[in-house]
């Protein structure tokens, strides 16, 4: 029997590293449904979870998979599912429930090319806006974009920590290339892994208000069976959790679920940079596309172009402050992504007209080559 944390150096795919990251983070429930190219996460964790006291279930569809992890989280267990675009489309209904009921959970999307069934076995980054806005109504969400198997291991832990801290579903927006890429993954000792659990309900059980926010805007969470007799609903609700069908009620609830993210951006947003200090042209990228962008930066520097990379680790919330600051001093931005312009729009918006923004996009199915990025760097600026 293997331990929950597989300390040591491994050679594994992004999908497997994601499953191992979940186990290291304390995930003990996975509700899944097979879909290329995310299936390996379910396959791997289905064997591992029962060995570490957790439970895996393959549900009848992605709707049920998502509902089951929200239910499991309400029972106090860190829970996760993994899917690809078509599955995410189905999960968004209950992602909305998790947002509204402030139930922590992690959803992995190993992106493939769409729309519809698209190119099931070939990667893309076309679901970035879907991750942000896919469920109905206005809300804030957290999405991470790992760029290697090693990073997916750590970001899965981060995803759980952020989800538990802010009681919000966290999406891991990886892609087929990273999911299926095998690389060296070093897993530290269990005691070196920092894990966070949701703020716990305390105090008098008859007076507990399950949606009364704490100091950081996040309410402590009562678990089913703890005796708090909570009511949880996807209807607009007041601090007691009771349906509140008023305009005022909607405003209060919305400002809480939006505010807990917007007021904690410094704690949530994670970015990475490469040769950015003196950069005149900034490549903005994430996931697999940030890897090709790195090569393009090196080549550009070799040719005397002062390029740098601004890599998004959290894609949502978007680091608009950082882009705005850069916009004031750089010649321009080049967004590199495997879609026909999604995060590009965010960069453009954040730059606020202070610097021109160019897209190096692709419909998906293959990676964007460094040559193409380099060509655009030269032509556009």
């Amino acid at each position: 029997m293997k331990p929950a944390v597989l300390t040591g150096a491994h050679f594994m795919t992004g999908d497997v590293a994601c499953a191992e990251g979940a186990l290291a983070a304390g995930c003990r429930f996975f509700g899944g449904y097979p879909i290329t190219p995310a299936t390996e996460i379910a396959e791997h964790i289905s064997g591992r979870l029962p060995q570490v006291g957790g439970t895996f279930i393959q549900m009848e569809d992605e709707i049920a998979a998502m509902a089951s992890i929200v239910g499991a989280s309400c029972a106090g267990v860190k829970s996760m599912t993994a899917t690809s675009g078509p599955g995410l489309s189905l999960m968004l209904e209950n992602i909305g429930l998790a947002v509204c009921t402030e139930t922590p959970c992690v959803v992995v999307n190993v992106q493939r090319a769409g729309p519809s069934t698209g190119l099931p076995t070939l990667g893309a980054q076309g679901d970035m806006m879907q991750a942000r806005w896919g469920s109905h109504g206005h809300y804030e969400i957290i999405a991470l974009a790992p760029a290697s198997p090693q990073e997916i291991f750590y970001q899965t832990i981060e995803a759980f920590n952020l989800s538990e801290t802010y009681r919000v579903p966290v999406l891991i927006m990886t892609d087929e290339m990273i999911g299926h890429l095998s690389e060296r993954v070093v897993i530290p000792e269990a005691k070196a892994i920092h894990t966070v659990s949701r703020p716990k309900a305390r105090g008098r059980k008859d007076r507990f208000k399950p949606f009364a926010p704490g100091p950081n805007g996040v309410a402590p969470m009562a678990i089913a069976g703890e005796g708090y007799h909570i009511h949880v609903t996807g209807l607009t609700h007041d601090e007691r959790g009771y349906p509140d069908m008023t305009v005022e009620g909607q405003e209060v609830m919305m400002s809480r679920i939006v505010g807990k993210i917007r007021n904690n951006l410094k704690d949530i947003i994670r970015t990475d940079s490469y040769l950015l200090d003196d950069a005149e042209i900034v490549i903005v990228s994430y996931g697999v596309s940030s890897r090709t962008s790195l090569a393009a930066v090196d080549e550009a520097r070799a040719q005397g172009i002062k390029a740098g990379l601004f890599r998004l680790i959290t894609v949502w919330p978007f680091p608009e402050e950082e882009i705005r600051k850069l916009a004031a001093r750089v010649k321009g931005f080049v967004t590199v992504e495997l879609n026909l312009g999604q995060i590009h729009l965010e960069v453009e918006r954040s730059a606020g007209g202070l610097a021109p923004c160019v897209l190096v996009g692709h419909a998906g199915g293959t990676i964007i080559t460094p040559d193409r990025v380099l060509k655009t760097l030269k032509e556009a600026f």
Partner: protein
Amino acid sequence: MTPTNKSINHPLDDLLRTDRIPHIWCPGCGIGTAFAACLTAMKASGIDLEKTVMVSGIGCSGRGAGYVMLDSYHTTHGRAIPFATGLKLANPELNVVVFSGDGDLFAIGGNHFIHGARRNVDITVVCVNNLNYGMTGGQVAATTPLGAKTTTTPVGNPDGPFNLPLMAYAAGASYVSRWTILHTRDMTESIKDALLNRGFAFVEVLSPCPVNFGRRNKEKALDSLRLYQEKTIIKNDAHPSELDIDFERGVTLGKFVDIERPTCIDRYDATCRPPEMLEEEKAA
């Protein structure tokens, strides 16, 4: 002897969110009766109520979870059963009761129902069947009788309804019964049995919807109750294939399935968990 409404307590007040009463259900609607029976059964069964959770979907019956003074979850349309599955599997100590309606559980949630029954998830599902979508104003449902008028079948329903106990039986439920809200004691007793059944237990409760179904089909609430009185026959162990709802011919009520078979968790533990882990747990 004098009726009073001052400082008196209904026997179920301890299990009710009394600050939310009166509930939203219309005059003559039977959901309140089915809900009260569910609460009475929960008390009578002797299960630990602190470890009991009610889960509902969306719709009139789906509001049930909002009135019980226990941990309660009002989820998304049709998804009460997969949500309940997650709750139960994550904490097997919980008693999970799904209280929802026919549209929620059998149209949008139909797939989840049959898979919950197939896996034999140890939960209790109480379905209030009022033959239509009440919350949205009386549209045709998967349970609406052939020919019945609804707002989306203005000249009559061209399709036939599901036989819910047959579906539950065929999918593998370990307890299946059908009652009407008029058969209140039988219904209550049946929900109690269902709560105590280890496995996927299903109780269908026929209930009037006078405002949305009845109005268009010349059936006031008391007419529905009279139909329940005159046109039903109690036939325990009747074969589920004989349970079509047709009030012209008569509707069969009773308990049709009451078996024990390994639950989802039993099988998972036996199949997937390392034996040494199970032994450790037993020792603990």
